[in-house]
């Protein structure tokens, strides 16, 4: 029984991690006032870049760096359209999502069916021996990185000058501008860096979670990240909670399938997505009640000379 719980716990973390990266990246982007609906596309680009470079060089580090690099390029495209050209953020984000699906399928053709030895696990002495919770300390380097990122991002927003400026840009770009904060530069780099972090989530999928390449392997996890941003009220620690909640439901349904139940596996596979819809309904209702942390200028391009 303990074993089963440990397995579920382990899968929870591993299933939650790619979504956590996706959500953290989107939070950084949206805190600057730019909506990012392209997380799914970014994660796919990250997954392919990570897989391709790792299988060619044999280096996981090179793979992860490549994932960050290429997703940042894709993110800069979104930033160029939305921040500099002041295009519609929803449309650009949707285009980015579709672009990622197409690009990864096209360039991933020669990798289809190939596999890798997944990222190895690092056992932390002593801590990994704790029953059940020990599973948290027998993970690979990217899982640890994701948790460290949660802490760093939270501290960045609450304790640093750049974090304050970035939040200001997302809340009231006019206030930032008249205080001498370069609004477009902050937005551009927030979108680009956020994209890079979302991209690590994709790389985690293809390097650790299911270390082989199949087309469209993120299977909607980017969209779940988009809804978890709202659920987490644009806060990194709450994103961790949301991502693991999702991971937990995924782990539970996988175990149910493995142990054979009479419920159709298709229905079970639907569970995490149903959960996402439920989360959206719940968090939108909270937003309506005014319990929001939503950046006040989310979705609005900033034009200094715009007359209100």
């Amino acid at each position, binding site marked *: 029984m303990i074993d089963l719980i440990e397995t579920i716990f382990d899968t929870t973390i591993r299933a939650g991690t790619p979504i956590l990266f996706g959500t953290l990246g989107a939070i950084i982007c949206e805190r600057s006032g730019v909506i990012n609906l392209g997380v799914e596309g970014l994660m796919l680009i990250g997954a392919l870049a990570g897989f391709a470079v790792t299988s060619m060089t044999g280096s996981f580090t090179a793979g992860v760096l490549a994932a960050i690099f290429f997703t940042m390029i894709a993110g800069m495209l979104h930033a160029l359209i939305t921040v500099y050209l002041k295009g519609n953020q929803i449309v650009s984000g949707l285009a980015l999502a579709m672009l990622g699906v197409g690009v990864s399928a096209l360039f991933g053709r020669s990798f289809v069916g190939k596999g890798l030895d997944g990222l190895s696990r690092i056992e932390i002495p002593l801590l990994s021996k704790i029953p059940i919770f020990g599973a948290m300390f027998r993970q690979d380097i990217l899982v640890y990185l994701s948790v460290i990122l949660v802490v760093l991002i939270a501290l960045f927003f609450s304790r640093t000058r750049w974090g304050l400026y970035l939040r200001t840009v997302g809340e009231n770009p006019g206030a930032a*501008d008249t205080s001498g904060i370069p609004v477009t530069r902050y937005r551009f780099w927030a979108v680009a860096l956020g994209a890079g972090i979302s991209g690590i989530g994709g790389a985690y999928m293809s390097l650790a979670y299911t270390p082989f390449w199949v087309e469209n392997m993120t299977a909607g996890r980017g969209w779940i990240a988009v809804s978890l941003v709202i659920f987490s009220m644009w806060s990194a620690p709450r994103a961790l909670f949301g991502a693991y909640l999702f991971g937990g439901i995924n782990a539970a349904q996988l175990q149910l399938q493995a142990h054979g139940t009479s419920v159709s596996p298709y229905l079970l596979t639907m569970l995490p997505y149903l959960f996402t819809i439920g989360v959206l309904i719940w968090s939108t209702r909270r937003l309506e009640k005014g319990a929001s942390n939503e950046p006040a200028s989310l979705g609005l391009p900033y034009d200094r000379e715009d007359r209100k």
Partner: protein
Amino acid sequence: MSESFLRLEGITKTFPGVKALDDVSLDVRPGEILTLLGENGAGKSTLMSVLSGLYAPDSGRILLDGKPVQLASPADALSKGIGMVHQHFMLVPNHSVLDNILLAIDNLTFKLDRAALKTRVAAIVSDLGLDLNLDTPVWKLSIGQQQWIEIIKLLVRDTRLLILDEPTAVLTPQEANKLFDFLKKLRAKGSSIIFISHKMREVMELSNRVTVLKKGRSVATVTAGDYDTSKLARLMIGEDEVPTWSKVSHAQPNVLVSVHGIEANNERGTRELDDFYLDIYAGEVLGVAGVAGNGQKALGEVLAGLRKPINGNIRLRSVDVTKDWGNGKHFSIIGHVPEDRKAQGIAPDLTVDENLVLKSYKAPEFCNFIFQKNKAIRDNAKVQVERYDIKAGPSGAKVRVLSGGNIQKVIIARELGIKPELLIALYPTRGLDIGAAGFVHSVIAKAGETGMGTLLISEDLDELLKVSDRIAVMFRGKLVGIVDPTKTTREQIGLMMAGEAPV
């Protein structure tokens, strides 16, 4: 007085379709308060936005200490000691007071040492004699307090020139006096201040010099002592005729609409109206005074049927109609001139003709079972355009291309066109020139002949004193009292606006 350190020469700025500034020049001397006087739309705010680096001028140059400078961004202007308090505050409502002020502090360390910064800011706050909790989110503060935060943001920098854009529009007379005392002290220390206003009283009290703008041009600069109010008014308005009319009261002794113990919240769930009582008599103009944000908006919305009260009831000729008030049943007797005329008052891309029948398009006069009667709609527009003297351009023009004053006339023509029994007018003359404002006043006052009751919400005390039969004063969502405009003083109303009940 010493030489000027800042000169603006030949500044021109065009927005799509409007020449906002046309060859404007201005100079500022050390240690003076220079007032920029002009009607709404004269270009005062635009000129100051150019000076603070927000707008790039099309042509003209700015000389600082004799040398031409480029003010390409607010950061540029701030680094040269020029800072501005905008009319729409540049604050982050969700951030704490401290975090808002931190935005103005240069050379912050990467890791914020909030404790030390808090001590530093608290010293400034207590120096100013203000009572501010630095940890409160800004949206919880009054507008007057928010303005002080904007001023503190300029004080923590080395600001040589402070620009204040109509700072008293949102203050009670008492709060304004406090601000004036502060500005005079600042001037004595050698700072320069540009003060934007269109209120003569303030101009006379504060200014060393006055530069008058009119329709985007600088018409004159006069030095204190060389002018009086009437000279300034002539410069500001030009030789345009100021319409005069005398108030005739049409108030009847019977109550038309009354609200009893109304409570209402805004979108954030904050209480806006709190146990509010008011009777509106048939035929009267009931003015509502108060500092912006004390529940006027919610009152207008509740009476226009746009917001459901949580508690209390609305009575129409003593009949409780609370349940039906917002469901459309009574819309044909309510005229509503909304606060934000472009967002709520018109359908901008429809034509003037169409906008004039937005409330009556279903009437048999304008439509049969399926089709609108376009000829009748056009004919109606012709009549209204003439009656209200609307400069509507060619027939078929979209209403959005009209000037603010003409858009307001379209709205008023439409709302009075349905012959309402109750008119709710929010800030109906905001942004209008004196001529158009006078016209709106006379139309509203005259409409009382038919027994229509008017609720006139305004921030302009002169307007309220001139047009109203009675003036109700609001504070924090409650009624402080009702005064007779012929028997009260501005000071009395000012005290009531700060919450002090009349003696």
